[in-house]
Every structure is written in C-alpha cells, then in structure tokens.
C-alpha cells in the first residue's frame, strides 16, 4: 500500500520520474546520469520547500504515516540487542505495548513502547497501538524491574489514544493510566521518553512522565485528537486541520511552551524516507540524555522529575 498525502504528491511524482528514468537507462544501457542528477536536485529543492512550510495538520498526517518507523523499528535500528518480555502477571499480555531489555551503547535499559502494526492483521492484533489497561500494567511491571536492577528506562510513545472500549473501561483503563504515571514518578533510575509518532492524550502521557521528554520533529503531542477537537469546537470533524492549528500539537509548539526538552530532527522528507538515519538520531539524542542523567543521584532524579512537571502550567495571580 502506498499512501501519498496531498503535500507529498509533487515529490512522489518526481520520484516516479526518476525511477522510470533509471529503469530506462538500465534497460537500454544508456547514460542518463545527468538528467537523473538534475531531477534529484529538483526533488531535494521541492522537499525543502514543502517541508519548510508544513502546517500542524500536515504534521499530524506525517506522524500517522503508515510507513513511519514504529517502536520496534527503532529498537531494531538503534539497539545492540533486545529481548522482549511479556505479560502483566495479572492475566493479560497486551500487544499494543511492547517492552523488554536492551543494550544501547554502554547502557543496559528497560525499553517500553507503543507498537502499531504495519499490515492489517498486525494492526488489528496491536489494536492500532491503543493500549488496554493490561498494556500499562505490563509497562509498570517492567518499570519496577528497572528500578530493582537499577536500569534506566526508555519509553517510545506512539498511540492515537488509550483503548476506550467497554473491555478497557471494565478493567480500569483510567486507573492503569494514572498508576503508570505514578510508577514512573516513583522511579529513582533515569527515565527518557521519546514521542516518535502520535502522542495521543492520556494514552501517551501514561508513558511520558519521564526525566527528559524528547520529540521527533514531525511527531505530534496533543490533549485530544484534532478530529475530536473539531467535533466539539466546530461541530464538524472535517475541520480537523483548523483544530490542529488551534491545539498547537507540533514539536515546535511543545518546545516553545517548555513541555518537552528537545526536538530530534528528522531527515529531509520525514522519518519514513530514511528510518536508519532517524533511528541513529534518536540513538544519539537518547545516549546524550542518559549520559547526563546517569550522573545524578537517585533521589535527585526523582526530585528533578517532580519539578519538571511541577512547573508546567500557565496562569496568573490577581
């Protein structure tokens, strides 16, 4: 399946032309390298031009791009090794949240992330990365393991929302989200969260109560999906682009507002055009945070984390 968003269309047209030309050259044994180089330069200019002016809604589409790297892609591309662990020890194992033990540079880590599915079948299995209570409870189990063995925690956030269904409600999805945050606040090991795609409201913050919160350039982070916001604000879910503007759900806005610590740049044309390079950028950003955090005393880490969120909020005193 190829997905081409409106703003990507001219680029993909150029890309098709380049591919055709290459094939033609190969078949006929001709040297068309000059023409190809020219088209590629054109593509590069166009990409720069388009990506210099992305609206929040464009970023929303990029964050949800079906070819965007997912949590396990990053784990595979950036970690030296990884062993997935399973189960909440309470009766369930939620495929929407994955977690395990990884090596990253000189660090041994607990990694927990929301995992989308690439094809239809996996998408359904992973419930579109909408975790049920058991997903967060598995995460908490792994957080406690991290605490016990003094391993830093890395979370990779990528979810449209926590699962809102009857089953999740009946097993306490709200409690699970709240407890997951509480467990993260109680940790005395370094914690780093990276919003890699969709940072969807409660489902996202449940895994993002970390010492450092980073965001990929084209990821989004929002209190409500733009469609839901549009339905309330304009009584029209199709006005999601306007709602995306109003919500200011981009990485730039989050950084400006002081709610995240760092934007990890994506390659030109967004992460899905070069997962390898993106993963290496994430890797080096995370390693840098870990280098800084691992110099801090356990109790201080907890206190810093508290203060990090404590100061969030904009109000006045009359």
């Amino acid at each position, binding site marked *: 399946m190829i997905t081409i968003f409106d703003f990507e269309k001219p680029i993909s047209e150029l890309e098709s032309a380049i591919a055709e030309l290459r094939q033609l050259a190969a078949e006929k044994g001709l040297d068309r390298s000059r023409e190809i180089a020219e088209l590629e330069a054109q593509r590069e200019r166009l990409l720069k031009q388009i990506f210099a002016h992305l609206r929040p809604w464009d970023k929303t589409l990029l964050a949800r791009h079906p070819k965007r790297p997912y949590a396990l892609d990053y784990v595979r591309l950036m970690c030296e090794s990884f062993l997935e662990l399973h189960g909440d020890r309470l009766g369930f194992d939620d495929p929407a949240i994955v977690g395990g033990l990884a090596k990253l540079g000189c660090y041994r880590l607990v990694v927990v992330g929301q995992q989308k599915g690439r094809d239809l079948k996996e998408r359904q299995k992973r419930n579109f990365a909408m975790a049920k209570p058991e997903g967060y409870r598995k995460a908490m189990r792994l957080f406690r393991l991290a605490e016990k063995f003094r391993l830093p925690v890395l979370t990779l956030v990528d979810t449209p929302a926590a699962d809102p269904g009857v089953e999740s409600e009946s097993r306490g999805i709200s409690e699970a989200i709240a407890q997951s945050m509480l467990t993260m606040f109680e940790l005395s090991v370094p914690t780093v969260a990276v919003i890699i795609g969709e940072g969807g409201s*409660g489902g996202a913050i449940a895994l993002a109560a970390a010492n450092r919160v980073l965001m990929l350039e084209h990821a989004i982070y929002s209190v409500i999906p733009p469609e839901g916001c549009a339905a309330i604000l304009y009584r029209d879910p199709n006005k999601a682009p306007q709602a995306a503007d*109003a919500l200011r759900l981009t990485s730039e806005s989050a950084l400006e507002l002081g709610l995240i610590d760092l934007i990890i740049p994506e390659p030109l044309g967004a992460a899905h055009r070069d997962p390898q390079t993106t993963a290496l950028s994430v890797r080096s950003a995370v390693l840098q945070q870990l280098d800084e955090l691992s110099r801090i005393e356990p109790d201080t880490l907890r206190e810093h984390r508290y203060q990090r969120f404590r100061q969030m909020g904009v109000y006045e005193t009359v």
Partner: protein
Amino acid sequence: MQRRGVAQTNSEQWVQCAKCRKILFRPDFERAMRVCLHCGHHHRLCARERILLTVDSNSFQETDADLRSVDPLGFPDYADKLRKGAAASGENEAIVTGTAMLGGYEIGIGVMDFSFMGGSMGSVVGEKVVRCFERGAERRLPVILFCASGGARMQEGLISLMQMAKTTAAVSRLQRAGMPYIAVFTDPTMAGVLASFASLADVILAEPGALVGFAGQRVAAQASVGKPPANFQTAEFQHEHGMIDLIVPRKQIRITLTYLLEMFLPVEAPVR
C-alpha cells in the same frame, strides 16, 4: 443524554427532579441535600454547597483563590468560555480548595465545580490540586477531593494534558508523607481527571448514579465489540469492577469520611 445533573426550577417553591420528573417542594429538596425524595437521584451540587454540607461549621478556609486562568494558546473562544464559566458558577475556576475541619480532624479539601466549564482541568485546576497535596504533605493533613469533571481542558492544549502528570506527581508526594487521600466521585468524574489524581486515592467513594468513566459513551461503544451494559460508566459499574470502594448516599458521606480519617490518622499509642 438528558441534563441529568440539573433540577429544573419551576418556581421559587417547586423544582422538578432531573431524572423521575416528579415535582418536589424546594425546602424538602434542599433539606435532602438535593437528592430526589422520590427516586433518590443525586443532583449536582456546586462547590460551595458541597463544602457547607461536608465540613464542620465555619471551619473552611479557602486557599489559592487568587489564581486565574489565562489563554496561553489564543484558543478560539477560550476567554469567552472562562467568563461564562465564572458567571454560571460564581467561581473563579472549576475547583475550590482550602483547609477545614471534618469530624474534628483538620483536612485539606478540594471540591470541583462542574458548572465552571464542565469541571475541566487546565493550569489553574492542576495547580490548585497540586498545592492541596503539597500542603497535605508539608503540614501533615489528610486530603479529601470531591471530583466533578468532564476531563482535561482542551482549550489549554498540551498544557492541560501535562496537568494529569503534574497532579499525579503530587499524589506521590502525599503518599510519601504517609498521609491519607480520599476521593469522592460525584457526577460526573471522567477522562483526564479520572485517569490521573482521582483514581489514585487510598479509598474511593462515589455518589449513587454518578457518571464515571474514561471516554465518552459514544466513543466507548464504537470501540467495542458488544453492546455496553445498561449501567456502563456509572459509579455502580465501576464499583462492580473493583474501582470504587463504596457507593455512599450523599447523607452518609460526612460520617463515612470521618470514620476513614479516624482509622487512618496516627493517634497516640493505645494505653495498656
């Protein structure tokens, strides 16, 4: 959904129950704490009424009344909604906090007011909740919170999502201080408030029939295979599913809270 919370005023003397539609004599209705004398429906209370009905007489001292919301994102109509919320509720924000005595025990208390922008949690609600917990931790006060909220305040964007984390962190402060935290879920307790500090109380009480849940009913139904049960997202449903300790009729909330304080607060070692 009917406007379940609001008793319609027919005249100065009479009100109509929002649920059974029966007509009630207002003085009786008020004496029953706005619980319908026919069907037992618990109508919403505003924050001040709740405080009056809950704490020892004249003991409430408000704190942080000077905090006001601003419009950090320039969000459409937010400034206007804040004005309307203030007018509708008579409050500056969706929560009133303070200290008080309850059954002779000094407590920190917060009471949310649904009539201010649906009790939604933005920066001011978050800050006041946090200060309530911090005050409890510092002064060794138990904290009692009455929840009534539709969730996070969309108009403050990501800042309001962060209030979930911020208030949760503050719960951990109170926990470390070993002080009790009791939550009372009143109609409605939803979404971002339920999924943060509300669910983390040591003991959770709820009023009968209160709406308590994560997502809107329509979203929940769409995301599910089967049909939601008849009592879906009521306090009774959450009680069946282990999320609420007790459903307590409004009249018994005060005595139940007092008993819990008596059980949890440190006393002198018993003399033997």
